[in-house]
C-alpha cells in the first residue's frame, strides 16, 4: 500500500453522507496520529469547513485563461471564431470574445495566423488552504453564477500534500465534476442510503466509475431493515465497507455542525472499522 494514498468519497445521490464520512475519517485518522489532509472538491457547495472549522492561512484566486484579441494585429480572418468549439468567439467586424463561455483551451491562440491573441486570467473562484488542528485542509469555492466547476476542482487537487493521506470530498452526481474529483485516486468510497433513490444513483455512479478502473467500496449510511443495497453490492462484487445505523441523534448533531465523536462515542468504533476496511483494500 502507498504510504499516503488518495481516497475519494463520492456518492451519486446528494445528501447520503459524503461530507459526514470524509470529515469524520479525517478526524479519526488525525486522532490516531496519522498525517491527513481533507480536500473539499464540492466547489459549488463546500461544507467540510462547517464541521472541521479550519484556520485558513492561504487564499488564492483561481482563474482560467481567456483570449484577448489585439485589434491592430488582427487580420480578421475569422479562424479563431471557427475553431472555438464553445462558441466563445463571434466573428463580426473583428472577433468578439465571450469570456463566460470560454473553457480556456487555447485553440484560438494556436490557430491565429497573425499571433494576435494573448491570454489573460479570468477569475472563477478561490482555493483556500489551512488546517483544522492537525488535519491539513483545502477547499475551493466557485463564484456563484460560474457554470464550470472542473477547472477549480483540478486546482484544489493541486494543493494535495505529498506526505499525508488525502481525503477528497466529492460533489454529488455522476458527471464531469465527480469525474474531475476522482481521477487519479487510489480508492473511491461510495456512500449511499437504503432507499430506491440511493440505490439507483449508486448504480449510476458505479457505471461511471467502473470504466475508470478505480477500486471501489460502498458504505451504507442510515442503514435499516431494507437490504436491497447490500444485495446490489453482492451482485456487483462491490465491497461493503461499513453500515452506519439510522439514528435521529446523528441528524441532530450534524444539523448543528458538530462532529459526532463527542456526543456519540460509539462512532469512533465505526470509523476505526471503516479505516481498516479501506486500508485492507489499498
Amino acid at each position, binding site marked *: 500500500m502507498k504510504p499516503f494514498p488518495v481516497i475519494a468519497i463520492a456518492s*451519486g*445521490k*446528494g*445528501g*447520503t453522507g459524503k*461530507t459526514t464520512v470524509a470529515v469524520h475519517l479525517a478526524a479519526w485518522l488525525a486522532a490516531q496520529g496519522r498525517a491527513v489532509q481533507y480536500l473539499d472538491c464540492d466547489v*459549488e*457547495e463546500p*461544507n467540510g469547513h*462547517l464541521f472541521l472549522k479550519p484556520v485558513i492561512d492561504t487564499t488564492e484566486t483561481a482563474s482560467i485563461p481567456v483570449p484577448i484579441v489585439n485589434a491592430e494585429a488582427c487580420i480578421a480572418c475569422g479562424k479563431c471564431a471557427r*475553431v472555438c*468549439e*464553445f462558441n466563445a468567439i463571434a466573428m463580426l467586424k473583428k472577433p468578439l470574445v465571450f469570456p463566460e463561455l470560454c*473553457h*480556456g*483551451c*487555447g*485553440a484560438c491562440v*494556436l*490557430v491565429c495566423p497573425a499571433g494576435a491573441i494573448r491570454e489573460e486570467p479570468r477569475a472563477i473562484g478561490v482555493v483556500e488552504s489551512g488546517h483544522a488542528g492537525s488535519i491539513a485542509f483545502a477547499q475551493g469555492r*466557485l463564484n*456563484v*453564477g*460560474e*457554470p*464550470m*466547476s472542473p477547472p477549480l476542482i*483540478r486546482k484544489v487537487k493541486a494543493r494535495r500534500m505529498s506526505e499525508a493521506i488525502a481525503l477528497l470530498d466529492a*460533489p*454529488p*452526481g*455522476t*458527471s*464531469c*465534476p465527480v*469525474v474531475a474529483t476522482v*481521477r487519479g485516486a487510489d480508492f473511491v468510497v461510495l456512500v449511499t442510503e437504503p*432507499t*430506491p*433513490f440511493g440505490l*439507483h*444513483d449508486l448504480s*449510476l455512479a458505479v*457505471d*461511471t466509475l467502473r*470504466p*475508470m478502473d478505480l477500486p471501489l467500496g460502498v458504505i451504507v449510511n442510515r442503514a435499516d431493515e*431494507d437490504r436491497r443495497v447490500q444485495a446490489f453490492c453482492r451482485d456487483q462484487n462491490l465491497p461493503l465497507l461499513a453500515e452506519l445505523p439510522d439514528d*435521529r441523534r446523528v*441528524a*441532530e448533531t*450534524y*444539523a*448543528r*455542525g458538530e462532529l459526532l465523536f463527542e456526543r456519540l462515542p460509539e462512532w469512533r468504533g465505526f470509523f476505526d472499522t471503516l479505516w481498516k476496511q479501506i486500508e485492507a483494500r489499498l
Partner: protein
Amino acid sequence: MKEFVVISGKGGTGKTSLTASFAALARNAVLADGDVDAADLHLILAPEIRRRTEFRSGHAARIRADACLGCGLCAVVCRFEAIAATTRPADETRVFSVDPSACEGCGVCVWKCPVQAIDFKERICGEWFVSDTRHGPMVHARLYPGAENSGKLVHLVREQARQLANQENLDLVLVDGPPGTGCPVIAAVTGTRSVLVVTEPTVSGAHDLTRVLELTNHFNIPTAICVNKWDIHPEQADRIEAAARVAGATPVGRVRYDKAATAAQRQGLAVIEVGASPLADDIRAVWKNWIDFTSGMPKETP
C-alpha cells in the same frame, strides 16, 4: 402556461420526493426531470416511454494509434490532462491516447497533430424521453456515464416540456431540478416563473441556501423556500427562514421529518398518494402556499 422549478443547493434535501407529491397535486401539468445527472423522479412516476431521442453534444478526440508518430505534441498542448503516453507492445514504440472521461472536446490536439492522426467525432452524450405517467406527460433524460455538458440537456428537457404543455393545452410545467449552483442548475432556472428551494435545518443547508439564493437573485427569479425535516433542528429552521427573507426569498412552509417519506418511496409512491397523514398535510400546504405566492406576483413582462 407557467413553469415552476424545484431546486435545493445542497443535495439530498428532498427535492425529488416533494416534486413527486406536487406532481400528484397539480392538475394539468407536464412533469420534467431536470436532474439529468442522477434522475430519480421516474422511480416514483413510472413513466411509459412514448418517444426517445439521442442527445448529441460536443466532440471527443480519439488518436488513431496506427497513425500516431509518438511525438507527444498533443499531450503538450492539452490543458485538461487528457492525453497520456503508452508503449506499443509489438515494437515498444511510444504511442499516445486520449482519456475520454477527461477530454474537454476543445480540438486543440486535433489542430496541433502534425500528421492529422486525431479523429474528432460528435459525442453522443445521452438520450431524452417523452413519456406518460399517471400524473401527466413527462419529459426526462439520461446522461451517459461520465458525460459532460448537462446544462444543454437540462435546457432541452425544459424546452420540450414547455412545447408539450402548449401542444396538449396544459397550463403548468413542473421541473425537478439538480443540486448545486453550476451549469445544470443555471440551465434549470433561467427564465422560469418561480423557483422553490427545498432546504434542510442544518448548518450545511443554511450555508448552501445562501449560495443558491445569490444565484436566483442574480437571475431575478421569484424564489420561495421550504424547510424539509424542519423538526430535526427547529431553531435552525427559524434562522434559515429569517435569512431567506433578508435575501428576498419567501418561506412557503415547513415539512416535518417522518419515516413515512422513505416508506412511500420504497412503495414507489409519492407521500400524497399513500393516504392521509400529517406529513401529507405539510406537503399540501407548501404546494398551496407556493401557488399562492406565484399568483400574487406581478404579471410577467413580455
